[in-house]
């Protein structure tokens, strides 16, 4: 084990800013990418469902006339 205490762990031998700055930004970017991709997925599904509904609403009366 490298660390005597939690404080020692977070201090990273005086390099806390560099080590946690690296890991922190990497973690934030990965989480942001997952959130971004998931919300895009949801938006795409909703948008396409709306488009399909709009088209169905237009097509059905036409078929009734014919």
């Amino acid at each position, binding site marked *: *084990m*490298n*660390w005597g205490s939690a404080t020692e*762990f977070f201090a*990273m*031998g*005086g*390099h806390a*800013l*560099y*080590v946690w*700055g*690296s*890991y922190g*930004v*990497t973690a934030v*970017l*990965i989480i942001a*990418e*997952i959130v971004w*991709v*998931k919300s*895009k*997925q949801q938006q*795409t*599904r909703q948008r*396409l*469902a709306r*488009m*399909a509904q709009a088209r169905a609403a237009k097509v059905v009366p036409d078929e009734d006339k014919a």
Partner: protein
Amino acid sequence: MSTETTKEFSWYHFASPRTFYPLAGKMIPWFAGVAVICGLIGLYIGFFVAPTDYQQGESYRIMFIHVAAAWMSMFIYVIMAIYATIYLAMNVRLADMMAGALAPTGAIFTFVALWTGALWGKPTWGTWWVWDARLTSELLLLFLYLGYLSLRGAIDDPNRAAKASALLALVGVVNVPIIYFSVKWWNTLHQGASISMTKAPTMAATMLTALILMTIAFWMYTIAVVLMRVRSDILTRERDATWVLEEIGGGK
């Protein structure tokens, strides 16, 4: 007729968006799971098992994400260029969609490599940035990813966007060996390769284990997130197909 269908079952079968969409959906949790497990074990070994570096102290622990991200930034670009080639040679639409879905993740890993490199350079070299061959060519890689993405975004017609961006991906791929060999070809401030095919690694076994686990984690993460992204693109591009209408209708 049945023999004909069996013969057609091959790569083209999986290259059909309709086949690929549900397959990708089933694979995502597995890749994500491996990524999380490898990432957690890698972080544990990297912080609690790997010893303090006698020269650099604790700042060397940045390596586990810096080197892994830098490898991914180059690897993703090469895969992107391969998909671009497949698209140009065989006109497989899915190959273009995969190339397009890889680019944002590649750009993120390139940024991570540059960012963690700056934070590692400051305590180690005394500077955040130098215009040496390794750093400059990695920065160029970031611009190639961003250029690729803005080119795709700027062209409305999907076929023209696919062709133009595939060409850009192919031209840019020459930068990858330049990044990789820059530390050999030029006198750079950046240190040489820590791991090579021909020499034994210059680091402790536990450090190497942590680095490899983090690389696998990033790699599996990339596959999972790229498959998620490409699934949205497939739905958008195939929106008029019956199976997509069934998928968005029934998948709620």
